[in-house]
């Protein structure tokens, strides 16, 4: 089992850093259902990886296998070059922040943080100092004597982080610990996770269904769906160059227009035909490109579409469609228009208008024009 990994470790990952976690062809079956299928990825030391996916995508199962609470049905997980499938959780050097935090209610904050040090039989004389240092790191200096139920939700989060980090684990795992928080606190804690992770440089794997969180906190994102890894990329790449329709749809707000492929060029330009309408775009996934004459769909982000009351204002754009506003949704920082376009069978296209102050406001029922550039439309099979 050691052999295949040495070859992995010998070629160093991007940035020339050592690989902390290597997931190799890992699968997990529950009663014949494939919760995780053939998952593989490398995580270099010190990086923050987020496994992003909807519920039931297998992301938590994958995390639990890395933590050691479940044993893979197939494949192997390597932590610092060692195969860990046979290693129980308490013998792995992994700090985990649980979904419901799992703080010990019968202990104080300091006792919770001291717990992993005591269990790992660290020198008892150094424990109080170290506990205080890590409480300070999570900005809870002086709160050590508090009972868990005397702390606010955000403070409990911080205790859980300190407890997971205090024994300086090789790996930090976050199992959607922020899911239950209100939005304001969640966004604050996201930045807090990022700050602490950068300060300590601890390799981190985070699991979430919140695409915003994934984009904000991570160095890398692994997008999962139906047990399979859909894409592993940096946040900006996952957003701008989604590898397939699922990723394009799951991250951001994306409109899909289905059609048949009319032509494909060497350079990756595709044009698809929808009724009489010809839509130009780029190949989204070079590994799995659409075939000429085959079905395909063009994906266009809501923020890449311009909206105007008259077609002349959009003359510089490659594709312009006429439509009728069916709904306007005010979201504070932006206005979302839903526009039904006759050319694509009255399908609704969603458009963001980020600066309503200087733009014309459109009302429901108003006739408008939509336009976008061909390079912004990604075509997937």
């Amino acid at each position, binding site marked *: 089992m050691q052999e295949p990994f040495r070859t992995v470790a010998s070629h160093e990952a991007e940035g020339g850093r050592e690989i902390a976690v290597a997931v190799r062809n890992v699968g997990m079956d529950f009663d014949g259902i494939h919760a995780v299928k053939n998952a593989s990825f490398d995580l270099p030391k010190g990086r923050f990886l987020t496994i992003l996916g909807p519920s039931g995508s297998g992301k938590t199962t994958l995390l639990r296998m890395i933590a050691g609470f479940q044993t893979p049905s197939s494949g192997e997980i390597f932590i610092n070059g060692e195969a860990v499938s046979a290693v129980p959780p308490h013998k792995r050097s992994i700090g985990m922040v649980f979904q419901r935090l799992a703080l*010990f209610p019968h202990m104080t904050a300091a006792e919770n943080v001291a717990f992993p040090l005591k269990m790992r039989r660290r020198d008892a004389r150094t424990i109080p100092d170290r506990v205080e240092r890590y409480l300070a790191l999570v900005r809870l200096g002086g709160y050590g004597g508090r009972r868990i139920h005397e702390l606010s939700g955000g403070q409990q989060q911080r205790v859980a982080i300190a407890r997971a980090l205090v024994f300086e684990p090789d790996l930090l795992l976050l199992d959607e610990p922020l899911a239950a928080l209100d939005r304001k606190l969640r966004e604050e804690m996201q930045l807090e996770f990022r700050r602490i992770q950068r300060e300590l440089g601890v390799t981190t794997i985070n699991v979430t269904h919140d695409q915003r969180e994934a984009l904000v906190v991570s160095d890398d994102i692994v997008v999962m769906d139906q047990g399979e890894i859909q894409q592993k990329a940096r946040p900006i790449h996952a957003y701008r160059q989604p590898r397939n329709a699922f990723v394009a749809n799951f991250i951001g707000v994306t409109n899909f227009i289905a059609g048949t492929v009319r032509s494909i060029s060497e350079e990756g330009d595709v044009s698809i035909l929808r009724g009489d309408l010809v839509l130009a775009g780029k190949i989204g996934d070079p590994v799995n490109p659409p075939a000429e004459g085959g079905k395909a769909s063009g994906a266009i982000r809501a923020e890449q579409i311009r909206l105007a009351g008259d077609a002349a204002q959009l003359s510089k754009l490659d594709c312009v469609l006429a439509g009728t506003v069916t709904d306007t949704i005010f979201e504070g920082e932006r206005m979302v228009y839903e526009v039904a376009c006759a050319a694509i069978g009255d399908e609704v296209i969603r458009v963001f208008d980020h600066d309503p102050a200087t733009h014309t406001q459109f009302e429901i029922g108003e006739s408008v024009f939509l336009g976008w550039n061909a390079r912004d439309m990604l075509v997937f099979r």
Partner: protein
Amino acid sequence: MQAARTAYPLKWRIMDALEGVAAAIWPARFRRATPYLMLLPAVLLVGLLVLGLIQIADASLRTLDTTTFQFSDDYSIANFRRALTEPLFLVVARRSLIAALIVTAVTLIFAFPYAYLMVRTASPGLRKFLLIALFLPFFIGQVVRAYGWLIILGNQGMVNEALGLVGVAPMRLIYNYPAVLFGLVQYMLPFAVLMLAPALTAIPEELEAAAGSLGANWVRTFIHVVLPLARPGFIGAGVVVLTLSLTDFAVPAILGGGSQDFVAIAIYDQFFRTSDQGLGATLALMLVALGSILVGIVFALFGAGTLAMGRSRA
């Protein structure tokens, strides 16, 4: 008319009428008294018990004249003096008390793994089996069960026959102290499991996983996480088993075969054999006092556990 009926269905009209009647009988200004009204049946019941206790207290202060079989008209503490000085009663009291303590400890030790498995098992089939096995003994009365043990453990019982097959001479397995303890533990086990299970259910499984990931093996997880968090369940189960064993009648009477009397049997003898209601009442009062002191000590040392309904959780 049709439209009105669908908008305001008959069921609502009936509810309105009932509410009207209720308001006539118990106007809104009496509402503050409603909780006390609900408490009334319980208060009546406890009141009757208190009356009975007063009567017992009265009886305990009257001595029996053995020549006339009449109770004295004046009060004296002679019965209490007898109860505290006569060696028989002291032997019986000590036997009951030690039995209650041993039975409580042993029962809790046996009940915990059972309750833990029942709560934590991933298999619904096993959980159902354990639950049914737990409730089955409740359908068979305590007396029948004790007789069952007589048959199994008797001189010609199954156990001795099985021992005979491997060449062990028949042993006296009943009518002794260990037999009574055994019967009591067997009888108390379901109560203890039932008291422990909710306390264990209240411990999130994630806590045990967390302890594991923080470096604790299962032994240390058990000692540092499960045991302290299950404490309310242990206290609740312990108090129930302690008081039930201390005051038990049938098991020591049947499995003890007259040689292993508990306090409850001594009280029975005073009331129905020697007809000394005074002394019987005295022993009953002292048993109540002993039980109360024991429970008081447990509460003082460990808190009220699950019996505090979560109020004392600090």
